[in-house]
């Protein structure tokens, strides 16, 4: 056991279940899920359709509340009434979504898009300070100052994803949550964005939570892997352990199904 596993996790689900529907016709999307994400770690949550990935993601982002169990941040249960905790959570947990085409407002310039979370979270003393921050994060993701005045449509898929990452980084988050952040990208671009995410994580000391159907992506970016199946945790542990010596036949089948090149 390392220190990390005994300390308080940064973000965690404790016995979380989420049911949908009314009397007699409930669907259980998540069923008693425990996941602990420790500060500075990278955790991948992998699963196929119907595994509960989307429901889990909404709970992790505080956009939904569990039917039973708790979601906690810094050891405190996320509760709509705890304004101070929620404020901190909204600032410190940022998300990058799958499709930058639909997640970036087409009518806003890149500078406006990246500055938007700073404004809504009231970060930065004035316009000048926010503008400097926009330049800084655009630099981190490899976009130059020219990009500021352009619109998302003027960029390729990979560059749009860089803009989305810059926006997520602007408020200095502790946790970056990725919802299939590279799945919609061409393979050569995918590799670049994966390298970017890995580098930013190390340089900025970010905690990374990656939700994906792609076990190869999780295998390359995450130190820990959680295999989700039918709303339950099928298997979890160190990525190398889970993906090279899985204990669950389902994990084995998932790995065997991945087409690879000899």
């Amino acid at each position, binding site marked *: 056991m390392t220190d990390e596993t005994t300390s308080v996790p940064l973000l965690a689900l404790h016995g979380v279940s989420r049911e949908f529907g009314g009397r007699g016709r409930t669907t259980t999307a998540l069923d008693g899920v425990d996941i602990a994400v420790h500060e500075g770690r990278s955790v991948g949550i992998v699963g196929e359709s119907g595994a509960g990935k989307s429901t889990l993601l909404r709970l992790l982002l505080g956009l939904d509340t569990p039917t039973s169990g708790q979601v906690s941040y810094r050891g405190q249960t996320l509760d709509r009434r705890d304004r101070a905790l929620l404020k901190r959570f909204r600032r410190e947990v940022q998300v990058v979504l799958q499709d930058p085409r639909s997640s970036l407002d087409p009518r806003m310039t890149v500078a406006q898009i990246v500055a938007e979370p700073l404004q809504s979270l009231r970060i930065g003393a004035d316009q000048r300070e926010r503008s400097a921050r926009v330049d800084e994060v655009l630099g981190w993701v490899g976009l130059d100052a020219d990009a500021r005045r352009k619109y998302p449509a003027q960029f390729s898929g990979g560059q749009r994803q860089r803009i989305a990452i810059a926006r997520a980084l602007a408020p200095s988050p502790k946790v970056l949550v990725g919802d299939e952040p590279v799945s919609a990208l061409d*393979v*050569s671009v*995918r590799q670049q964005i994966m390298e970017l995410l890995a580098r930013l994580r190390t340089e900025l000391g970010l905690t990374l939570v990656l939700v994906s*159907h792609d*076990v*190869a992506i999780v295998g*390359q970016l995450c130190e820990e892997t959680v295999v989700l199946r039918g709303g339950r945790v099928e298997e979890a542990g160190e990525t190398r352990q889970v993906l090279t010596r899985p204990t669950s036949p389902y994990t084995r089948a998932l790995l*065997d199904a991945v*087409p690879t*090149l000899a």
Partner: protein
Amino acid sequence: MTALEVRDLTVRTSGGRTLLDAVSWEVPFGGRLGIIGESGSGKSLTAAAILGLLPEGMTATGQVLLDGRDLLTLGERALRAVRGAQVAMVFQEPLTALDPLMTVGRQIAGPLRLHRGASRTKARELAADLCRLVRLDDTERILGSYPWQLSGGQRQRVSIAMALACEPRVLLADEPTTALDVTVQAEILDLLDELIERTGTTLVFVSHDLPVVARVARDLVVMRSGQVVEATTVAQALEAPAHPYTRQLLAAARAVSRLPQEDPR
């Protein structure tokens, strides 16, 4: 003997922009051609042009030779007799390719009635056989279902059953497993592989995913920005890719599909 040959296939928009630029390749009878490319490479447009299914405003020049007959010279009526009967298609998302208002049984029977003039009862029997062929074993329930009542994998099996209904010479599959879960993808690829082998159908398989293409195709055409950059075989491309772009694509595909390996002890 060549089953399908594309010669200098060029597609332009009404504004004069060239989207496909003199694309040429051929597949022999019983051959398996993979067309690989990233977004904007023109791989799907090639498939659409072959069947005369280009979006409004685009025009194709060159030749698409099926048994020596140029499909680009055919009118809509003649083309309709080719589509489904001689060249059948399987698309990425079967939910949009299948008619939501028609039961699966009637959809599979459709091409048999249209192209083969099969009676209703005969078509229904053949549809049941086709269901079993694509391993949809709960045949009666499947035939009576609407597409949205089936899983993604089941729907793609239905699409394959429909495509094979009239024993086409060429099966044109455009990203047929891209929308599927990886375990379902593996099953569908195995199924396609087996059916193609057994029926001797010529396969043209379009995809952005090199490991997927490598599983089913023998010959390989690499496309970029509307042009063929390399025509080779899958084995050759994996062993010794000639074009720098093929090398780049291969390196990226290897990198992103790599799984963690056991520590050497």
